[in-house]
């Protein structure tokens, strides 16, 4: 809804700005409004980020202070390390296993809840409840359910799956928890999107005799696509940075099957004390995320309907 209105609004403003000269403004005023945010950004994001670039070109001593300049050697070491490529592969797998299932499930839930039944509010709350659970308690809950011998999941499935200790399942298990954690947020966004589709539009096609599938194809899907895009975008960025549940559930294992980049960065910096390696990895992650975001915005123009 926002994005769709946005475009209209910006089109309108462009037309206007051509027609009328801009209102006179004090030249400093807009910058003043940006000051509070930028003080924080500069101190706690940009400065440390530049520091990261700096450290990535040095070695560090046992106390974590920069020592000798090595240029790009840390990056060269990274790109010669099979473990690093493994981390990148796992990160992409992880992102795909989270972003799309969680949006899809949330969309189905939003369609389910988009009715005028009694008790609708109760379902809405139930569907979005995981949003209220922090990662530490959530992993505590799920690790009980994943327990190999007496966990409820294996009991129901009648299996003895080693969810957290078999490399083939660990990433799936971590993904399930992450998807569960993000369903609530996605559900609310998509529900709001569906609610904002004008009822007259739906009624008019209903009178024309459109069935549910047709309504879905020609009304819901196109009109919700801007909202869907925002949700996919937030989920992709979020899953690149998922950390708490991985640390608490698998610590990157078994083997290195859940060692996503963010975990690897944490491990290098905090467990092994090699800040320079962590900084180099972080910069690679930054570049990857930047590329993925640019691709997403390219893609947006092709699939998202703004009319």
């Amino acid at each position, binding site marked *: 809804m926002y994005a769709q209105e946005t475009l209209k609004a910006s089109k309108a403003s462009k037309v206007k700005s051509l027609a009328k000269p801009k209102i006179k403004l004090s030249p400093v005023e807009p910058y003043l409004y940006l000051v509070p945010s930028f003080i924080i950004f500069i101190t706690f994001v940009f400065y440390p980020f530049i520091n990261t670039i700096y450290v990535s070109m040095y070695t560090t001593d046992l*106390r974590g*202070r920069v*020592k000798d300049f090595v240029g790009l050697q840390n990056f060269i070491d990274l790109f010669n390390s099979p473990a690093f490529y493994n981390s990148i592969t796992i990160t992409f797998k992880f992102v795909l296993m989270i972003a799309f299932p969680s949006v899809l499930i949330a969309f189905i839930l939003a369609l389910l809840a988009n009715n005028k039944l009694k008790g609708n509010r109760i379902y809405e709350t139930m569907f979005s409840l995981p949003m209220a659970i922090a990662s530490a308690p959530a992993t505590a809950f799920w690790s009980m359910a994943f327990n190999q011998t007496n966990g409820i999941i294996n009991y129901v499935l009648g299996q003895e799956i080693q969810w957290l200790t078999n*490399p083939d399942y660990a990433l799936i298990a971590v993904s399930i928890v992450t998807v569960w954690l993000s369903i609530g947020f996605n559900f609310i966004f998509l529900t709001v999107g569906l609610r904002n589709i004008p009822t007259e539009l739906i009624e008019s096609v209903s009178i024309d005799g459109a069935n549910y599938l047709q309504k879905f194809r020609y009304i819901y899907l196109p009109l919700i696509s801007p909202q869907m895009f925002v949700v996919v975008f937030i989920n992709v960025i979020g899953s690149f940075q998922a950390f708490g549940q991985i640390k608490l559930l698998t*610590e990157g294992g078994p083997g290195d099957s859940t060692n996503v980049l963010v975990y690897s960065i944490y491990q290098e910096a905090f467990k092994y004390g090699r800040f320079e390696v962590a900084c180099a990895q972080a910069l690679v992650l930054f570049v990857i995320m930047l590329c993925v975001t640019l691709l997403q915005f390219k893609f947006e123009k092709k699939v998202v309907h703004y009319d």
Partner: protein
Amino acid sequence: MKKLASLLLLGITTLSMLTGCSSSADQTASATSTAVDLVFWHSMSGTAGTAIDELVEQFNNSQDEITVKAEYQGAYDDALTKLKSSALGNSGPDIMQLYDIGTRWMIDSGYALVLQDLADGYDFSSIEENILEYYIVEGQVHSMPFNTSTPVLYYNKTAFEQAGLDPESPPTSLEEILEYSELLTGDGKYGFSMQVYGWFFEQFLNKMQLDYVDQGNGRDDSATQVVFDNNDGARVVFQTWKDMIDSGYVVNYGQDGTAVIESFASGNIAMTVGTTASLPTVIAYVGDAFELGVGYYPSVNADDKGGISIGGGSLWAMDKGSDVKADAAFEFIKFMVEPQSQLIWSQATGYFCVNTETYKLPEMIDFLEANPLFAVAINQLQESNNEAGAVLGVFTEARDAFEENLEKIISNELSVDEAVERLTTTVNVAIKRYNASAN
């Protein structure tokens, strides 16, 4: 514009009020006590954390010159990270509890004082020799052992009886464990399980009397490379571990130690290995479900002659550039290993008493009579064939690498030889990097 300014001003005032409040509170606190204030960082949570608080309170009440404030800093790794970062701003602790495998790093970093230099006239002879030995590096005592544990074998006596095995003679080697496991497996139950844990690998090497690294296992000088590839230790342990799991009588629960203990307590596996510090937990979990037995930590082969080395943590006096603080820190450390303190500590947690005088206290004698399982662990600790164990600056990573490679062997991603090669390379590269940053 005025409103914006006033809003910002309001924000700033509120902020400064917040900061103002907290700093004035600090001032009053330090103003009332003229004596030495010490900060003690530890990594003990749960009941052990409660026991630490109790001991610190006792210490503070026992005299008026020194006030210790105990602060839990998360797991050892987290505490170590915080130490590294806060030392740059000189805001770290005065006393620090650190795990055994952080010993080399702490020495090399220069953050801590050498304990022996502070211990003028202190008699180390009451400290259990087999424990103290671990903290002697390059001929000096660097830190005071505090919470010490060793690995032991836990077994289900009731299951042994049902399988026709003698419940009073537990297996002593992995070979034997496999034989026993065959008899104990069936009905969805398994004979044995062992947490994927690098510490156990180090202990198996001790049992085989093989070194982990060069330079006298890292004790004469900083290690330069691993030796477990050339002395065949890694291959033997990997292969034995793999064979056991492939037999079908031994089950793998990965790196989750609690899952292994729970499975043991619910009777799904008849034997497991674990730290002595888990003994109270195991006893509580098992309850009346079956009769619990404790045995010595198994060797790999039946004819291995070596013993075990200790694990756990020790107390370090940190270098804060103040002799007064350093002496006060040593007073506190001394108190923590007094017989009476160790009695409280060991009964609350299951860790050993590092002070041998504790065993002469009537409460301890009664306790051991009532809890004979603890005696097995103590006997094992006091055996004469025990090893000091390796000292290495990159132990955290070496353990992670062992665990990762073992798991890849178990899931058939790597052969045993490939895993040995990868483990060797990873740890050697880490050692090289470490030595480069240490010098």
